[in-house]
């Protein structure tokens, strides 16, 4: 047993960090929310160049055929930097649903996909920018047409109602669903870690009553609880990537969501009013975490699966 990321995986994560730290991701997110996708698509292509979009695609379609754990490593970093776009749909879910040449476009970073997966994913994410739109219906796959746009609690998630179109094939959607939930868990977990890091930084800088607020025990104890939840959720996410069993994936989704939600609520409390402003990047994560809590299976659904399998 070696329950540690490999050096290669650590290096891959570091290269994603290097790239994303040097780009204006938050600005791309704000533009994305306005329906201006240029910056976001540029970022998508850059991430494709270092292999992110090819991870789940089989080698016969020019993909990397990488492990589910490699996917988790990537979604972890996408979540930390809160990269906008249908990453879960395109990179984690679609390659598990289809065996088709269009996956070559996914691998190359040219194709963005939107996947509706009712009842857990009833609305289609970013269907306006997606090149491929697929709805999973029982065991079948359909193309869908985007209908009314709905406004998400997270402005950067552009959701659409789904109008079913042509049936395009059979599907065994189980693995695709697990991967959607797992990628969401990894994204959530590290969105939570960003919220914690930002809050710790803020607590060191922000002075009140002549002292940094991070020296106050009440603030310390809030943040200690957040790091505890996050640290203990991470191994669940990694184990779920190794086993992909319903029980492990669900445990990961519940724990990552819980930890990220605590990080978001605590983060706002520590930041105070500045965190409530639209200018501060905290809000981009806070609303994202809230939205993702219910996506790819609610906490209640995943808890029930854990109990069912135990």
């Amino acid at each position, binding site marked *: *047993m*070696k*329950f*540690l*990321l*490999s050096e290669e*995986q650590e290096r891959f994560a570091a290269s994603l960090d290097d790239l994303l730290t040097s780009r204006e991701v938050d600005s791309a997110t704000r533009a994305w929310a306005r329906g201006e996708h240029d910056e976001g698509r540029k970022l998508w292509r850059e991430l494709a160049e270092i292999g992110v979009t090819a991870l789940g695609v089989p080698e016969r379609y020019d993909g990397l055929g990488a492990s589910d*754990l490699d996917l988790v490593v990537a979604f972890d970093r996408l979540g930390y930097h809160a990269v906008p776009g249908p990453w879960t749909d395109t990179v984690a879910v679609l390659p598990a649903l289809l065996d088709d040449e269009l996956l070559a476009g996914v691998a190359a970073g040219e194709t963005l996909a939107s996947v509706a997966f009712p009842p857990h994913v009833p609305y289609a994410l970013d269907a306006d920018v997606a090149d491929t739109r697929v709805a999973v219906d029982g065991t079948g796959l359909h193309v869908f047409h985007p209908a009314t746009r709905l406004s998400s609690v997270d402005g950067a998630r552009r959701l659409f109602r789904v109008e079913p179109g042509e049936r395009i094939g059979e599907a065994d959607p189980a693995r695709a669903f697990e991967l959607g939930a797992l990628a969401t868990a990894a994204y959530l977990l590290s969105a939570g870690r960003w919220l*914690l890091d930002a809050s*710790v930084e803020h*607590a*060191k800088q922000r002075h009140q009553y002549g*002292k*940094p607020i*991070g*020296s106050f*025990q009440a*603030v*310390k*104890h809030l*943040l*200690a*609880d957040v*790091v*505890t939840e996050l*640290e*203990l*959720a991470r*191994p*669940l996410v*990694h*184990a779920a990537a*190794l*086993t992909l069993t319903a029980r*492990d994936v669900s*445990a990961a989704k*519940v*724990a990552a969501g*819980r930890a990220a939600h605590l990080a978001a609520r605590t983060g706002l409390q520590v930041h105070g009013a500045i965190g409530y402003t639209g200018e501060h990047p905290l809000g981009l994560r806070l609303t994202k975490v809230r939205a993702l809590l219910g996506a790819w299976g609610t*906490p*209640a659904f995943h*808890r*029930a699966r*854990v*109990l069912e399998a*135990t």
Partner: protein
Amino acid sequence: MDLDLDDRAAGFRDEVRAWLAENVPKTPLASFDTATGFEEHRAWEAKLADARLSVVSWPEEFGGQDRTLLEWVLFEEEYYAARAPGRVSQNGIFMLAPTLFSHGTDEQRHRILPAMARGQEIWAQAWSEPEAGSDIAALRSTARRTEGGWLLTGQKTWSSRASFADRAFGLFRSDPEARRHHGLTYVMVDLRAEGVTVRPIPQLDGEPGFAELFFDDVFVPDRDVIGEPGEGWRVAMTTANNERGLSLRSPGRFLAAADALVREWRDAGRPAGTAERVADAWIGARAYQLYTFGTVSRLEAGGKLGPESSVNKLFWSRLDVDLHETALDLLGPEAEVGPEWTDGWLFSLAGPIYGGTDQIQRSTVAERVLGLPR
């Protein structure tokens, strides 16, 4: 990254499982906080030692099997899953022994460890004092130099297992002039020595799990001092995070309890409004198991344990209370008449208090893990 066991580890786990299935007493032993139960548990320790299962990670010369840290964790998982008796020797095995491995002399190790491994000498801890609590630097009991050793004077309290134990270990102030953390000496003392008074203190369950210890010029020979006199604080601290110690509190205990909780929930007809708490208890226990596997992997790859053991303690102490509270709520009015879940609940309540309260741990995490200002 993988969760696969190699053949040696898997073989060991299977052996342990088979031995426990054969040997764990069918009726639970009496509480080790009673005179009868203490001796029953001492006999159980000897039986474990005969099978070389009492201290599996220790070197063979002291009664162990030289097992890896991972194998020790696997042993613990099997031990709890088999509902084997609580370890009356745990203070010695998990707290004193790591200190002796790091700071003891060869003579001390050979004299003390084999007897500890067999339960021939059962150890109590003597850390707490009425004024000190988690603030070990505020200790007042003294060790005064005398011919060939030291004379101990003062009082220790809330000393676990001390009502029936043979010996105790703890810190005494040997230099009253030195600043708070300095001038403490780590000693081992015979609880039957002249000048020692042991006053048992009943715990919440009515059994004398604690005792007060009074020392009136109790002689301790030089050979029972661990490390250099005056260096007791450093000696205690360098082993506080020891991987064989409390910092790696066995995940097996929580997983076994969480599995039992899920069964209890099913048997109770899945009462409305309880699923969330039951699921979270199981998820927490699984998280703790996997976190431990991660720590073990890091240590086996040459890493060191740091202040993150406080993260550990903070997590499991709350998990344990939540898990047992949930079980009691499921049982409804039956919970009151116990005994199993109520005993576990009483035990869990100590978690957020001992070994540094949850509040102390939170401050440690905030300052040493997150780098917040003191």
